[in-house]
């Protein structure tokens, strides 16, 4: 916490955000996939026999 306030050094960051964007989408699909999988498993587990 205390380290946060000290430094406001600036860097050109457009490339940095572009690099991260790709990872953002991958991670989002992974999280969405997990949510859909849990939904389907919860239905499948208790399906009528």
């Amino acid at each position, binding site marked *: *916490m205390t380290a946060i306030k000290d430094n406001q050094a600036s*860097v050109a960051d457009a490339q940095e*955000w572009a690099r991260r964007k790709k*990872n953002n989408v991958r991670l*989002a699909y992974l999280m969405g996939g997990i949510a859909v999988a*849990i939904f389907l498993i919860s239905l499948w587990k208790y399906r009528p026999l």
Partner: protein
Amino acid sequence: MAHDLAHDLPHDAAHDAHHQPGGLMRWIQTTNHKDIGLMYLIFAFVMLLTGGAMILGVRAELFKPGLQLMQPEFFNQLITLHGLIMVFGFAMPAATGLANYMLPLILGAPDMALPRLNNWGFWILPPAAIMLTLPFFLGVFGVGPGAVDTGWTMYAPLSVQSGWGMDFAIFAVHMLGVSSILGSINVIVTILNMRAPGMTLFKMPLFAHGFLVTAILLITIMPVLAGGVTMVLMDRHFDTHFFTAAGGGDPVLWQHIFWFMGHPEVYVLLLPICGVVPHVLSAFARKPVYGYKAQVYGMWGIGALSVVVWAHHMFTSGMSVGGQLYFMYSTMLISLPLAVLFFCWIATIWRGSLSFETPMLFAVGFVILFGWGGLTGLVLADAAADPQYHNAYFLVAHFHYALYPTTVMGAMAGVYYWLPKWTGHMLDERLGRLHFWVVMIGFNLTFIPQFLVGLAGMPRRIPDYPVMFSEWNLLSTVGAFILGASHLIFIYNVVKNVRGGVKSEAKSWEGAEGLEWTVPSPAPHHTFDVQPIVK
């Protein structure tokens, strides 16, 4: 598709400022985290007033014994909608609103990771709210059977047999669940992938840790509820028998599914505030947060334990002794990481240079009142004692002591704390303090009597009661209306703050720490186009 989800940042973000549509379209199309956060917060507050107005109707009916204002069926609709609206319509969107507005500012990011997904997540909410409440308003005008009337727990088989208000509620829950999952995905991706260089997970402010645990919990539990309400829908319309005993189903299965979501949901509402409150306590004690790592581990501990204790809500439904013992002890175990958080909060302000501005009042109020909620929860976690209290007003008072200080007072602490950063004006302290004390009086006057009538045996969810409970119920109703009126003070204070006031500096509070206080007040439309570096 990938391109749609990941709005170009900050390149496109810079465009937004120049090509922003005006009027309503600005708000419909916006991908800016502050705009979306603001919409979430306003939506949540409107729902708070809606759900609050409904429960004032309930309290008016309970003002004295004897049916006076409404029929029992209408009473049931009011308490059901109050619960669903407050949990899914107010508390969860309010937390998402705070996350949206503050996470990029706190993490040193230009925006949320997935701004278009963010926009979509919000705009699912208004139709969902309409879907949830429409049958109620139609019913008021004599059209249809009215809203869902099963209680917010939607227990089977009542939910399988209930009128078509239940179908509307099922679809509303689906939409609200999708919205919260989209919001959670955004929070997780933003926290894991958008932090300023140098901000490791253990340098990240506690605010972000609270929301990270919350988002992971939501992605774990909301799909299970979606699965459960889908089963109810199929039982209602497609002749399945998940929950109908006559067809070989099991009504208790619904309770397990619901509470697998419902109990962690309590922590979904609590953990964001566990992230907010240390910021406020630290700022107004003018001391660093005490036990940073202990608080982080405490929040993760609470999150992990919260998904394995759900059946303590079902002690009165019948359970093996072994099951009762497991769920009793595991539930009590949660009090350990919670106690760690309490200890750290108290140690943060211990021997600090304290001042009690409005955010601090609400934060301390949260700690005290939520402590009561936690302690009374231990009583209910006891499998032997629980049947005495479970379906009585004691339980109602307990969970309101757990949830109101969290979702309203904790959120108010955060809103008052960061309001100068949002509007650029310092708030009216006199009105803020008035708001706090009216809340304290109204809240305690409402719910202390409910502990007492609950201990004396007054059951919950009834529109009428024996004369012996009259006095306490009268006081509780008076308290509820005072509590309701307190929100008018909040509205007036916020409107006044938006319209003007003493200009706030970048650092609005003397003891405040964090990246958000390094940018001007109000924060610019795009906050960190140039990344800060944290050492």
